[in-house]
């Protein structure tokens, strides 16, 4: 009997599924995880209204629904690939997918059971928090849990490529995962904007559950037949902790916003930053310095810093970081400008669709422009298409900075966003190629992950800091425009709409400035033409041939 059991448990021969089938199945959760990165942009106003979050004091906290996800997604991306190297792809992938599903359930019911549990815990500890704040906190926790699972799926899938494909066949599957990841967040707002016309925002997250469970069953099945190599060496716990601390401290520090207290008596006080901003940024700087030190000395570093000695690797990643930041300016500005024009909450559902459509004018061209970007990079090298893209994006931002008044048409907004999207999209292939080509063959997976991570880091930093910058600027302008008199409700609202549009125009000009700034690392990019690679390849082949051939 025991022998029979052994036969069917250990070392049972399994049929190996096609690597492309494995890739297709593991890509589905990657897509959903990325979709949830941007899905909230369209539905956030509905969330604000339903949870009864006060705009003047709660907007900075609401921003954490977006930046909390981005932060956890980025942190998870940095080290879960390595964790899967050590304890096996299949188990780590399935656990992370499970975490994503649990996070989705949490988000869908955030203001119900989880919020009640947090409230009960707080009250038992003698606290009486605002129920709205508790519901929002619960939502943010759910989003962080979701992202921690979702973000891990990208590097594990990329690492899986190394298990499934020989080195010379990894470029295409790696590109596919990158494309699936990008496609997810590119269509997230449009999907959210369309779906919210028919269903409650919570349903969008409930939908993740059956899809996630199906993906869980399929990947459980398909990964059974995949070889599970375990890497030697240890996990860089200290490095992971320090990097996580750096990212969290910098995001919270930059995102630290006005905290209205009863002691404040003027708007000037309202616009000051809380006292923990400086210390948190200092903690971030110290943690990052320590991280660099630890990584240099570690025998199993989380990130191989030696890669940054390569010119194209550093230049490409720096460009990606700035591009991520600039991209977020577009992603943040469009929903705000469209939603502030809604005359009452009944128009928010329609506004969600408009947000999804105008944001798609940014993200879909960005995704599509990656193709000509790659082609131009092959033909003219990495530098030219990157520079052209950045200039085009800068022009789009400048036009937005000059034209986005509260009366601007959606068509005109879309036109400017297309320019920004095409511009930023042109940079993605050349910078990614520059980063990948600069890395040795055995480091290309981690190189691709670092490039993705830095683009997301740019977006995270933008999401957390832009809300602070925008709200502070709005409050400063409000002091000038409203002064010490009491305004009539409609008059005050009109002033705020006008001020918000002005701040968005200023943000767009900041986007243009960043694109111009990104020209510096872009200009450092070298090579990249396909014919140069061909020549190098032929030269290497020739050198490898035995003499006399």
């Amino acid at each position, binding site marked *: 009997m025991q022998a029979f059991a052994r036969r069917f448990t250990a070392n049972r021969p399994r049929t190996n599924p096609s690597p492309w089938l494995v890739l297709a199945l593991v890509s589905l959760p990657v897509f959903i995880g990325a979709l949830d990165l941007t899905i909230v942009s369209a539905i956030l106003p509905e969330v*604000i*209204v339903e949870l*009864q*979050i*006060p*705009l*003047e*004091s*709660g907007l900075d906290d609401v921003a954490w629904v977006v930046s909390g996800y981005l932060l956890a997604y980025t942190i998870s991306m940095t080290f879960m690939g390595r964790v899967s190297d050590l304890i096996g792809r299949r188990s780590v992938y399935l656990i992370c997918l499970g975490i994503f599903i649990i996070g989705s359930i949490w988000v869908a019911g955030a203001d119900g059971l989880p919020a009640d549990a947090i409230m*009960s815990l707080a*009250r*038992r500890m003698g606290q*009486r928090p*605002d*129920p*709205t704040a508790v519901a929002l906190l619960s939502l943010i926790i759910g989003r962080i849990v979701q992202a921690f699972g979702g973000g891990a799926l990208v590097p594990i899938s990329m690492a899986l490529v190394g298990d499934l494909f020989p080195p010379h066949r990894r470029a295409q599957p790696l590109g596919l995962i990158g494309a699936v990841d990008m496609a997810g967040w590119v269509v997230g707002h449009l999907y959210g904007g369309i779906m919210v016309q028919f269903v409650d925002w919570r349903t969008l997250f409930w939908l993740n559950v059956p899809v996630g469970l199906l993906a869980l069953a399929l990947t459980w099945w398909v990964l059974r037949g995949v070889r599970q190599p375990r890497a030697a060496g240890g996990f860089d716990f200290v490095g992971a902790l320090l990097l996580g601390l750096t990212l969290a401290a910098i995001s919270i520090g930059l995102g630290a916003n006005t905290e*209205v207290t*009863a002691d*404040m*008596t*003027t*708007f000037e006080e*309202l616009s000051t930053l809380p006292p923990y901003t400086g210390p948190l940024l200092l903690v971030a700087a110290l943690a990052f310095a320590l991280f660099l030190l630890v990584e240099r000395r570690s025998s199993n570093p989380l990130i191989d810093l030696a890669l940054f000695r390569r010119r194209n690797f550093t230049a490409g990643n720096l460009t990606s970081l700035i591009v991520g930041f600039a991209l977020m300016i577009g992603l943040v500005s469009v929903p705000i400008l469209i939603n502030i024009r809604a005359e*009452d*909450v*009944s128009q928010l559902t329609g506004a969600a669709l408009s947000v999804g459509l105008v944001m798609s004018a940014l993200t879909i061209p960005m995704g599509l422009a990656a193709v000509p970007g790659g082609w131009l990079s092959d033909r003219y090298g990495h530098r030219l298409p990157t520079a052209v893209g950045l200039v085009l994006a800068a022009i789009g931002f400048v036009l937005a900075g000059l034209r986005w008044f509260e009366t601007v048409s959606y068509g005109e907004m879309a036109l400017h966003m297309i320019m920004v999207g095409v511009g930023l999209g042109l940079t993605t292939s050349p910078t990614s190629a520059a980063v990948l080509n600069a890395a040795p063959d055995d480091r290309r997976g981690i190189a691709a992950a670092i490039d993705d991570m830095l683009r997301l880091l740019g977006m995270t930093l933008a999401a957390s800091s832009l809300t602070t910058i925008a709200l502070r600027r709005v*409050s400063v302008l*409000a*002091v000038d425009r*409203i*002064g*010490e*008199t*009491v*305004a009539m*409700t409609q008059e*005050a*609202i009109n002033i*705020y709409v006008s001020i918000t549009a002005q701040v968005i125009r200023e943000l767009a000009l900041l986007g243009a400035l960043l694109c111009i700034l990104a020209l510096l690392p872009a200009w450092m990019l070298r090579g990249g033409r396909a014919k140069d690679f061909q020549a190098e390849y032929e030269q290497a082949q020739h050198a490898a041939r035995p003499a006399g051939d």
Partner: protein
Amino acid sequence: MLVLSILLAGCSGGTATPTPEPLALITEAARSIRDAESFAVSIERTGAPVYIDQAGIINFLRANGHYVAPDRVQARVRVLVSGIAGDVDVIAIGNDQYYRHAILTGGQWINAEFSPGFNAEDLVRSESGLSRAMGALNDIALQGIEDIDGVAMWHLTGSAVGSEVSALTIGLIPAQDDVLVDLYIRVDNGHAERLVIVQPDTVSEEEPVPSTWTVEVYDYNGDYTVEAP
């Protein structure tokens, strides 16, 4: 030893708290509110909306604040205007009131009436204020002891005349018909901690859930100050 502990606990549980007279509990709770030097208070409305302005635009959600004897109150009032939530900070000292709102007053305090006729001393200390409201409960019944967030409380139920509740709360609870009341009083110190008022007359086809007010009074004699801005 474990068995002995369980037996002792069982014995003490059976004789620990004699059932008090509901009226005596309420009288003592009302006195502790009236005599308090300060306390924190929160008021939350759920169910059918309640508009606190004549035009029927400003929908009350909740208020959190504190009272300092004899006549000072500071609170943050959350309201819904056209479906959008907003906070108004209010300070009342005697008959003087100040308020501010990020948009309406540009975040500046202004000296104007937010709640016409409100006076904290009248509400808390006078014989015609909260004490009378609590004493005016009809059909009082003691339901027993309940654990509310880890604190043992006497649970009393009763009803009250709506117009009286409305007058005492300066129109904040605009009840006309009788309201149902659940009162929770701490077993350990006799402080009234939670009052739940249900207005069955607010139920309609559009709003099937009645307006329910949860008033919590806590942190008696806590360290609070209220100053004019």
